[in-house]
């Protein structure tokens, strides 16, 4: 399926026709649209460049009559499943997701701490109105119709930069879906500053021409200083549970602890998820493509479009990690010079250049374009969203797949309320077994939660391939580990290789899988250490229990044999029992290491000598990052520094 990403990557009309072919072979789901304009089927009509010879006895002329351009919007109107609108339930999720992704991207780019409010209202038995408002920078009036009313229009496609959205399809596709299913146009209100007026637009999409139809355009009064509000009405269904809007928002809040979310579901109470950190993620930089990551066709297009005049300048300015020296040697090997005019290059020469570039040893792309969440943010997010006992996180050093820099982060949450989940219990009863439920994998790509196609995802495969039993966590072969465990995997990259436009699963590249597995192992090792320590602790607690139980018996029996100071004897036995079972008093930090604690003194009173560590209340996540936090289970003050250190050493 990675083909499609290659497609996306180069992203021009020629690639779209490739996507089109795939679309054709897929069953036409949802083509029974009531409102959307039915587009002439092209099934029996060969398309230029398709290459397939039909057996119909049509003349070139008769065929030519049927051959015409297909607009992107038309294509996606027919193949909505490619964008995540396969069913009603998913349509609702995808709509919310696209809008929220855009809002987060916009806020972060503008340096604003995101505050996002989401309303989902039921307007009919299977109709919902989705409204998403952010406090972002707003959108300039002229651009509103294009951004929301045109597919493949956006700021993010033509650059290599880490962001949530990639293609510029999402929100307009959601609007189009709404339009097709309910006939209701997409409603946008945007305001760029408190001094500017807010604009209200109602837009429909002309699917044939891939062009917005402006239905309404006016200035209105709003109660927010800046930001954008999108309302889409669509045929959908609302459920709670896995793969729901609720889950999406909860997971998004975990991956974006700097953002505040307020969700008003159609039924039930409002979900308030305040931010956990007051810092925006580091801004990401845009990079030029790395020669290893491009296709020949893309390079040819770049040759055509570049503003550079000479080959040397072209190579050094349009690619990353190509220095003048490298450019010269590449040109030389390809039989040209760096002074050759770019517009004089023939395709065979470009191909030669391309081949030489692929064979040349180049430095890996720079990785400062990546903004990983960071261990601290992951911990904050997990703490906020998951009631566990043990949390750990790890940020891998950046790595590269096919010329694209990426970075993997892994977080684990273990124990606590996990596994006491109602859902998991039901699951167990159904199985009739008492073994713990399987671990839950939560996946993120550029901070966007991935909810579908788990089993095709590279992250999921990496979890399966990890030998969890090495870390004392049970796992049947080929299955997820079992236990009160949540595994978070985040991939940050300028280009996340999704296996489809619906952005549901990460493609399985060896480099990516390797990094994920390393990240998981690192976290699992800490968890394993903790579990072993905990076992030791509980063993020693058991021991202390046994000793304590027998102390009185021994004291009484010994006392009945001979005379001595009973209390002194008892006290010294109790102190000894404390010392011999000191491991029972262990406490752990976030790496599962024992936190040094003063040994109980010999003057310890009798009353509280044997204390079994009782589970303490989970303190508010902020408190955990302060120095004098009472519970040091998660003490990630050091993680950031450590992360940087790792970066440097790698």
């Amino acid at each position, binding site marked *: 399926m990675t083909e499609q990403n290659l497609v996306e990557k180069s992203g021009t009309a020629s690639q779209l026709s490739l996507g089109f072919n795939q679309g054709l072979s897929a069953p036409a789901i949802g083509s029974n649209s009531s409102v959307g304009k039915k587009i002439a089927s092209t099934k029996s009509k060969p398309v230029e460049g398709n290459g397939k010879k039909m057996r119909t006895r049509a003349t070139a002329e008769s065929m030519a009559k049927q051959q015409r351009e297909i607009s992107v919007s038309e294509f996606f109107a027919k193949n909505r499943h490619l964008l995540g609108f396969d069913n009603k339930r998913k349509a609702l999720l995808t709509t919310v997701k696209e809008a929220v992704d855009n809002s987060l991207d916009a806020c972060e780019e503008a340096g604003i701490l995101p505050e996002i409010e989401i309303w989902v209202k039921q307007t009919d038995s299977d109709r919902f109105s989705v409204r998403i408002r952010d406090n972002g920078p707003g959108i300039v009036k002229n651009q509103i119709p294009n951004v929301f009313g045109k597919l493949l229009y956006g700021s993010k496609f033509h650059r290599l930069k880490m962001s949530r959205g990639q293609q510029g399809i999402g929100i307009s596709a959601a609007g189009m879906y709404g339009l097709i299913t309910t006939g209701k146009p997409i409603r946008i209100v945007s305001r760029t500053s408190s001094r500017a007026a807010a604009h209200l637009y109602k837009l429909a999409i002309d699917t044939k021409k891939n062009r917005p139809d402006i239905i309404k355009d006016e200035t209105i009064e709003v109660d927010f200083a800046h930001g954008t509000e999108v309302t889409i009405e669509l045929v959908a269904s609302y459920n709670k549970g896995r793969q729901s809007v609720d889950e999406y928002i909860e997971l998004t809040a975990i991956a974006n602890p700097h953002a505040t979310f307020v969700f008003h579901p159609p039924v039930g109470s409002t979900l308030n998820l305040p931010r956990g950190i007051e810092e925006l993620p580091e801004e990401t930089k845009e990079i030029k493509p790395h020669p290893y990551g491009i296709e020949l066709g893309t390079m040819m297009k770049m040759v055509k479009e570049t503003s550079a005049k000479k080959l040397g300048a072209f190579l050094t300015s349009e690619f990353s990690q190509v220095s003048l020296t490298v450019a010269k040697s590449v040109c030389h090997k390809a039989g040209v010079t760096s002074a050759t005019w770019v517009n004089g290059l023939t395709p065979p020469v470009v191909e030669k250049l391309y081949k030489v570039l692929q064979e040349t040893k180049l430095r890996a792309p720079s990785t400062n374009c990546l903004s990983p969440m960071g261990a601290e943010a992951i911990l904050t997010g997990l703490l906020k969203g998951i009631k566990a006992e043990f949390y750990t996180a790890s940020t891998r050093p950046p790595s590269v797949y096919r010329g694209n820099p990426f970075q993997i982060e892994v977080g684990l949450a273990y124990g606590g309320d996990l596994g006491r989940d109602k859902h998991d219990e039901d699951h167990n009863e159904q199985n009739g077994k008492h073994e713990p439920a399987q671990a839950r994998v939560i996946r993120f790509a550029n901070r966007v939660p991935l909810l579908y196609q788990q089993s095709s995802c590279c992250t999921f495969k990496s979890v399966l391939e990890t030998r969890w039993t090495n870390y004392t966590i049970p796992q049947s072969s080929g299955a997820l580990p079992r236990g009160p465990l949540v595994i978070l995997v985040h991939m940050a990259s300028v280009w996340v290789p999704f296996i489809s436009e619906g952005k549901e699963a990460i493609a399985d590249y060896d480099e990516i899988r390797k990094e994920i597995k390393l990240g998981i192992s690192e976290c699992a090792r800490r968890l394993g250490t903790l579990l072993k320590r905990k076992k030791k602790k509980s063993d020693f607690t*058991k*021991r202390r229990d*046994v*000793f304590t*139980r*027998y102390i*009185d*018996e*021994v004291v*009484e*029996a*010994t006392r*009945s*044999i*001979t005379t*001595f100071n009973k209390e*002194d*004897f008892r006290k*010294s*036995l109790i*102190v*000894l*029992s404390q*010392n*011999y079972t000191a491991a029972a008093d262990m406490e752990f930090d976030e790496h599962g290491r024992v936190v040094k604690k003063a040994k109980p003194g010999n003057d310890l009173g009798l009353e509280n000598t044997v204390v079994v560590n009782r589970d303490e209340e989970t303190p508010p996540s902020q408190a955990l990052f302060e120095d004098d936090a009472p519970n040091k289970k998660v003490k990630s003050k050091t993680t950031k520094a450590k992360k940087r250190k790792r970066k440097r050493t790698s």
Partner: protein
Amino acid sequence: MARSASKTTQSSKKTKRDNKRSGAHTKAQLEKLALSIVKMAEREQDPAIAIPTRSLSNVSYNEKTRHVEMGDNKQSRNFFNYGQAKRFMQTMLVGSKCKDLIEMGKTASIRQIYYMSKHTIKGTKEKTFDDQSESDPIIEDLEVAIDTLREELHVFASNRGNLAGPITLVDDGNTLDCSAMGSAGYAVPSICEPDMIQFKKCKAKFILHVEKDTVWRRFHEDRFWQTHDCIISHGGGQPARGMRRLLRRMHEELKLPVFVLLDNDPWGYYIYSVIKHGSINLAYESRRMAVPDAKFIGVSSFDYDRCGMSDDVKIELDANDVKRAKQIANYAWFANKRPWQKEIKKMISNGFKMEVEAMISKNLSYLTEEYVPMKLKDKKQWLD
């Protein structure tokens, strides 16, 4: 520690033990043990009781005395050891109960000790002892730990073993004629110390000890002791301490030779070895109980051919029997005796074992009227 002190004074131990010791001595030993534990706790040491190891690894065969003797290996029973804590506590409990017995001047059976020490630990549902099998070895541990004997701890086992014959003895003040004790004979008590049992009159010339009750009944019914002027006894399998102590005293004080008649199997060999040299488990008692001059008269592996037995008496040896036989052959006190090595080898090559009752298969009186008299007459057939 009582034991560590005696470790260096091995030689003086014997004289000490031979002296008749009062309860006060045992009491003092117990107190010494208790105090040592208190001291260890005071010094912030893990309280421990050193218990001489009661296993084959810690016994040696003394060629001179022909006793199996206990070595100096000791196991430390620590309180702050998860696996030993409970047994440590149990040892102290049994110790305190023995001390009570000594003070009250009463004795208790090992089962009574079990009940005396058993109670629920305060604040829990756990019992100090779950089964008598837990307290019995604790008593033996305590004996060796404080270098004393069960009788001195005022503990006794249930009676096991009987005897009959022309001997008159005084048991706890009652004069008993063992030739007139009815069909069951005289039941040998657990404690056969001189202060309990004294010999008054004895016309017997030797002792025939058989393995178990059923065989003994055959001899008793046939009045073997009358026709041969002897004492017949049995220990119900491996003889308990009372029976062994009595055999030893009769042998020593009345100069009666002891002959043993046991099944032809590894178990029988071991019983013989226990009577003659002492047991591995109670090696510290050997010098009071072993009868090094005891002779094995049968049943020998060669008797199958010698007596022309029928196939029907054969009991096939299993792997365990063979293993055990080889083990016994390797015991230091068998290893250098060629007749015994031949005997054990013969049994293994026979591939079968025989019970004493096998002799009855010929006819009911063959055992008492032909086989044993023949054996007693022919010294060459004895195994030493």
